[in-house]
């Protein structure tokens, strides 16, 4: 399979994503440029973390209008796999490829730390290599990761299994203490209702080597590879 990683002005984890995919996962991954429209026949588009366009308006609000996003939206509508991490998740929400929105952390501060998420639904291309209820250690680093959605929408999402990962404590249970940013239902990441678009605040690309804080992120990349095999 082929991966494409989009660089927006202000993307920061694009190089780390390419490193994780190429050097650790040994995948065919190439950079995509925000001013281009050509997705170069990739099978999965990744929107990486960062502060696209400085995030001066609203996180992800400018990036959704960049030329490449038109192509990404069409690609997603045709069922192509799209993964958004952190700022990428925010962009996917702004582009209405995912429901809900991400707002300021309840502490109002940027938070960088490693924490635990629980895999909630393994019947998706992004989680199929994980066990149901599996706990993954992943880092977060964001100032605006508080996930919100209208109550009834949230209920429908939960019913359909669109919540793919949730922040949990050491016992594997969601709790207020273990919810780093105040997200509704301790949501760390959601898929769309067709399960071909997935956004999450934790960074799987920063959890691919035991030496650098563990390899919990490999589950997500391996799932995508497995789903397209």
């Amino acid at each position: 399979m082929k991966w494409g990683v989009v660089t927006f002005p202000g993307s920061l984890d694009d190089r780390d994503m390419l490193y994780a995919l190429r050097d650790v996962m040994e995948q065919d991954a190439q950079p995509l440029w925000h001013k281009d429209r050509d997705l170069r026949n990739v099978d999965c588009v990744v929107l990486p973390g960062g502060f696209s366009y400085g995030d001066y308006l609203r996180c992800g609000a400018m990036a959704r209008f960049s030329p490449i996003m038109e192509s990404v939206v069409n690609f997603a509508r045709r069922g192509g796999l799209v993964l958004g991490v952190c700022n990428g998740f925010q962009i996917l929400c702004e582009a209405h490829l995912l429901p809900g929105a991400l707002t300021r952390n309840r502490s109002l501060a940027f938070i960088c730390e490693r924490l635990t998420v629980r895999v909630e639904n393994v019947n998706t291309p992004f989680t199929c290599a994980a066990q149901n209820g599996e706990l993954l250690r992943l880092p977060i680093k964001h100032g605006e990761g508080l996930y919100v959605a209208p109550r009834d929408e949230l209920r429908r999402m939960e019913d359909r299994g669109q919540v793919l990962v949730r922040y949990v404590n050491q016992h594997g249970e969601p709790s207020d203490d273990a919810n780093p940013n105040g997200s509704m239902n301790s949501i760390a990441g959601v898929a769309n209702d067709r399960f071909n678009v997935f956004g999450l605040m934790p960074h799987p690309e920063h959890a691919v080597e035991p030496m650098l804080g563990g390899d919990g992120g490999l589950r997500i990349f391996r799932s995508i590879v497995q789903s397209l095999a």
Partner: protein
Amino acid sequence: MSEHPAALPGEPRVDLEQALAHGLSEDEFRLIERGLGRTPTFTELGVFSVMWSEHCSYKSSRRHLAMLPNQGSLVVGGPGENAGALDVGDGWLAVFKIESHNHPSFVEPYPGAATGVGGILRDIFAMGARPVASLNSLKFGSFNHPRTRYLLGGVVGGIGGYGNCVGVPTVGGEVMFDDAYNDNILVNAFCLGLARKGELQSARARGVGNPVLYVGSATGRDGIHGASLLASAEFDQSSDQKRPTVQVGDPFTEKLLIEACLEAVKTGAVAALQDMGAAGLTSSSSEMAARGKLGIELNLDRVPLREPNLTPYEMLLSESQERMLIVAEKGREAELQAVFEKWDLHAVVIGQITDDGRWRVSWRGQAVADIPVAMLADEAPVYERPFAPPVRPSARTTAVKQRPAPAEALRRLLDSPNVGSRRWVYRQYDSIVQSNTVIEPGSDAAILRIKGTRRALALAVDSNPRACAIDPYLGAIAVTLEAARNVACSGARPIGITDCLNYGNPERPEIMWQFVRGIEGIRDAAAALDTPVVSGNVSFYNETQGRAIPPTPTLAMVGLSADLANCRGQFFRHPGDLILLLRTSNPALAASEYAAMFGGEGRLETIDLQKERALIDLLVTLAEARLISSAHDVSDGGLAAAMAECCFSPAGNLGAAVRVSAAGLDSAVNLFGEGPSTVIVSAPPEAARAIEHRAEGRGLECRRVGTVLNDPILKIDTEIEVDVAELRAIYEQALPRRIQAHG
């Protein structure tokens, strides 16, 4: 343009009074008149006032800085460039520097600290190196002072706001709170970059006729006179009025500028590159020309502006951020402009390199400045300021208060804002972007891998103003050694230093004495360790209404390990491991956190540099032989606090049972004393003999004092037996509980 620059309509008259208002002395003004053979124009006066300011010219410090050792087998590139570079092997160079942004951060904490980070990043990528890690050293007033929380929140927010947005991890640092900084905080920012060997970019102009490109953000009115009026003068009650001299940072543009500049350097079309830092366009253009012993011609009509009607004076003195100046290879400017256009940044030819050694500036067809380059960049007066020890010794001896029992003292020390966990701070920094951070903040030193090699770099930044206040010479030695130990405890060999020298007003002999003694201390320690000082920065005038900060030389040490697998953190790892103490001499309460809290005497012990060097060597060999599981340098809070910290493993609490009492050593001094040098090492029992053997061979004391426990209990002699979870809760809450105390 051969005519002399003339006054512009509406410009103030230039006379002595005007020169004094610009911060120049009468002698300096006369020197300028003599050098030019005429009275400078108002614009030229402004230019001289920044270029001859203490901040830009190092006029009080220059002759003393020459004492510092700056040569070594790993040093690459000559002095005078924007940062020092060391060969770290496998074709890589480490380029690093530390710089102060004290006054701007006190006046406007968020933008002040943010632009401090931005400025040091630009010094690094100006050398063609990709910035890969930042550190910072922060000094605030006490929590009893009404502005401390505001300043702490603003500075940490600014460092995070900028650093997190440019994709350079902030991997470590230090924070201290003390009354002495109530009215003058310190914000020192360090950055390290990596460049390929042979691809180091120079800031030396070359090639007569080469075009000069202005790249990055447009120029506005922010930061005018930041270098002269803000950074080179003391604070007084009017300091609030200096807020417009603080620049505003835009990290998004900085990120684009990093990528664009590194891409531009790769084309080979860049002859010279420099940040428009303090004194902006003026300093960058004149310094690049001076290094190349050439002239430069600038046309201000082409400078991209944020708002219309900036005067030449404002354009030349603006410290608007995120701007760089490039000397391009003639005929290749379009190639460079295409790179900057790709990143949506300005890239405008605003002048060219000339052969006449003059710095000539025109605007609207008129000459506005015409000054010999050397006069601006190299010929600022150098002062031999008088220095003398203070009449009254400044030892901060405090009356001995009621001393609590050891277990209670340990709890109170772990609750001190100077000992407790710094997590509240570093949690607000992205410490992992770029995927190199092997040991994250919270240990003695940060460890970064160099991708594609087995090599690793260790980074630590340290200072000890309490020791420096007692004895500025021994204190500076202690700081240098501590930074080296922190790096060595992590398994890396110290290879180079960058220093940020924060002092009061150098026009006062006792301050100048502190400064000179500080440099002598760094010189002697650096020489003993074979670690050159490859870059640095001096920050004077850190005082408010005549009250100076304690002398605060801050040192960042870079260490190198040939094999990442040899690197270690400070935390105990395996129950059953033996705990050993390595000591060069007995600790003392002088300058300790314990003395600050409970009183104590105020003399520093002498330091045996050869023994200290032996300890560093021992730590490096132990790591290379993979004999130890962890190593932790004893510092703030003394042995007992350090032992507790070793138990606070990120993987979960462990315990320790140790007997550390020593004949003839007071128990409070032993448990809570600081000063060179004690290191706590843990190791598998079967390695103990080999460790002792290596220590003995170097004439160092090595004692087996106990064992790492699976049970999270800390037992020290018969005096302390405490639950580690309880201690950790105190330690973790030390900062948050104070910060939240008043919202």
